[in-house]
């Protein structure tokens, strides 16, 4: 049966991939005037980076969420629910605050992103692995601490912006409120390299994800160097979230939705399939959502609103229908 499941899942993934292609084609081509080559190339220049950003974001959040859920051995927790993207926003604000918006670090998008990523990698990995250890991987505690941290980071960040010079704040706001309608496309290349680097550096740990599913004791029993492996994976998750947040701003529930949809659809423990499924779902949600937002609501409602509302309801549904947390 298990080979039949694998095959059935492959079919589902192909269908998802076709959906992604349809959405992407729709996003690129709807309302484009082919007759005028100038207008056509203008539309392409406008849309192509956005599409690319959405693809990268979906992959980063989808992969990070699945990996994170396996690390903590629970499927209703995602990195964003624990405040990772608030932490990123805080770090970004703090960097501009302390170095000033005119400094080289803040002016160059890539350099400021690099500084953010390094800080985020260090702070988040230390902080979250400490929390996991301290709470002994108790999910309810972790969730509680995460919720507190989210508002804690948010408060510090808003305090910083309040005492900031208004001009500094103005320039900060530009990079802070990245959204799907205003993507930060300057860092696409950097992000791609970073993600590829993360995957390459973690290739051994990623292969251990299936075993980690069995929990800490069984993973150790089967010969996994557990603590080291978890630390490295956590760093990878952190970097993925940094990439996603830097490009499109915080979207809290996206990871939760797509990771769980992928789990429900594929019903497997195989992470190669789960991650792919999660990423593909993310692409469908983001690109399809953006398509609707741009052409049906003509930008009146940003796609993140739909994701937050839908995700909130879905989160409640997951909490209420599960027998145990």
């Amino acid at each position, binding site marked *: *049966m*298990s080979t039949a499941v694998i095959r059935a899942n492959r079919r589902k993934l192909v269908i998802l991939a076709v959906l992604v292609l349809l959405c992407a084609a729709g996003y690129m081509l709807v309302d484009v005037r082919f007759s005028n080559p100038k207008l056509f190339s203008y539309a392409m220049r406008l849309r192509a980076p956005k599409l690319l950003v959405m693809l990268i974001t979906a992959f980063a959040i989808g992969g990070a969420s699945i990996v994170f859920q396996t690390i903590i051995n629970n499927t209703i927790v995602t990195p964003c629910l624990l405040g990772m993207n608030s932490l990123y926003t805080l770090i970004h604000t703090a960097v501009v605050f302390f170095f000033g918006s005119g400094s080289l670090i803040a002016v160059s998008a890539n350099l400021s992103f690099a500084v953010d990523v390094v800080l985020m990698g260090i702070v988040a990995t230390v902080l979250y692995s400490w929390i996991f250890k301290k709470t002994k991987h108790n999910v309810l505690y972790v969730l509680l601490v995460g919720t507190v941290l989210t508002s804690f980071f948010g408060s510090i960040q808003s305090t910083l912006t309040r005492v900031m010079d208004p001009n500094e704040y103005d320039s900060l706001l530009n990079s802070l409120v990245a959204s799907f309608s205003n993507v930060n496309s300057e860092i696409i290349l950097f992000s791609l390299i970073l993600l590829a680097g993360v995957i390459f550096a973690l290739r051994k740990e990623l292969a251990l994800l299936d075993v980690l*599913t069995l929990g800490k*004791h069984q993973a150790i029993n089967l*010969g996994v160097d557990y603590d080291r492996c978890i630390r490295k994976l956590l760093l990878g998750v952190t970097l993925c979230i940094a990439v996603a947040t830097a490009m499109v701003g915080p979207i809290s529930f996206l990871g939760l939705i797509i990771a769980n949809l992928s789990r429900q659809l594929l019903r497997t*423990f195989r992470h190669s399939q789960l991650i792919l499924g999660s990423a593909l779902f993310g692409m469908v949600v983001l690109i399809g959502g953006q398509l609707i937002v741009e052409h049906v609501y003509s930008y009146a409602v940003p796609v993140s609103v739909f994701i937050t509302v839908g995700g909130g309801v879905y989160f409640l549904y997951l909490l209420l229908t599960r027998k145990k947390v």
Partner: protein
Amino acid sequence: MQIQKLTKQYDGKTVVDGVSFAIPKGKVISLIGPNGAGKSTVMGMISRLIAQDSGLVDFEGRDIGKWKSKELAKRLAILTQSNNIQMKLTVEELVTFGRFPYSGNRITAQDREIIDRAIRYMELEPFRDRFIDELSGGQRQRAMIAMVIAQDTEYVLLDEPTNNLDIYHATNLMKTVRKLCDELGKTVILVLHEINYAAFYSDYICAFKDGKIAKFGTVEEVMTKENLSKIYQVDFEILNIAGKPLSVYY
């Protein structure tokens, strides 16, 4: 396997206090004792799941902490009490994980054979495609043990394997433990609460009290009225049934 002066403290409270003993090879050894006597902690330390504060676990002539985790996984298997598997996993897939230390994610034909044998051994063929979370407690426990069998290690450590099992399943499990030792030649170390299971199915008993070894020896040596009364602080009678010293407490 030699254990020397193992000590472990939690929050300043000594749970295991200078425990030393040698584990005889190819036998069934049961660790018994009242709640909080430290038997599960000792089990955790000899299986590298818990780090000791001081002392040494000498496994095949080398400190257990110095073994490569992957090498150790081919020699020693441990099954703990908490096994909440959240993922959709079938019995067969679970048992397949037992081969992970050998083949990683690439299962060979020989692995397949060993997996099939483990499933047959635990009489799990009717369930092999069922999801773990849809099984009863006894079936799940059997599936976990099948995985340990597939891991094919010399040493098998089971932490309270009869917990949450009814008499039928618990007894069957103990018979399997005996078979693992007699037929497959494994050294099995168990933590048990039921003294009579320990008395009936093991070769040696190590009784713990207050983090120390109260008595270690063959079943006959440990299962005496005086020993048990002292360890558990209740009155005991020892009856000889089927050639084994079984206890009645009241």
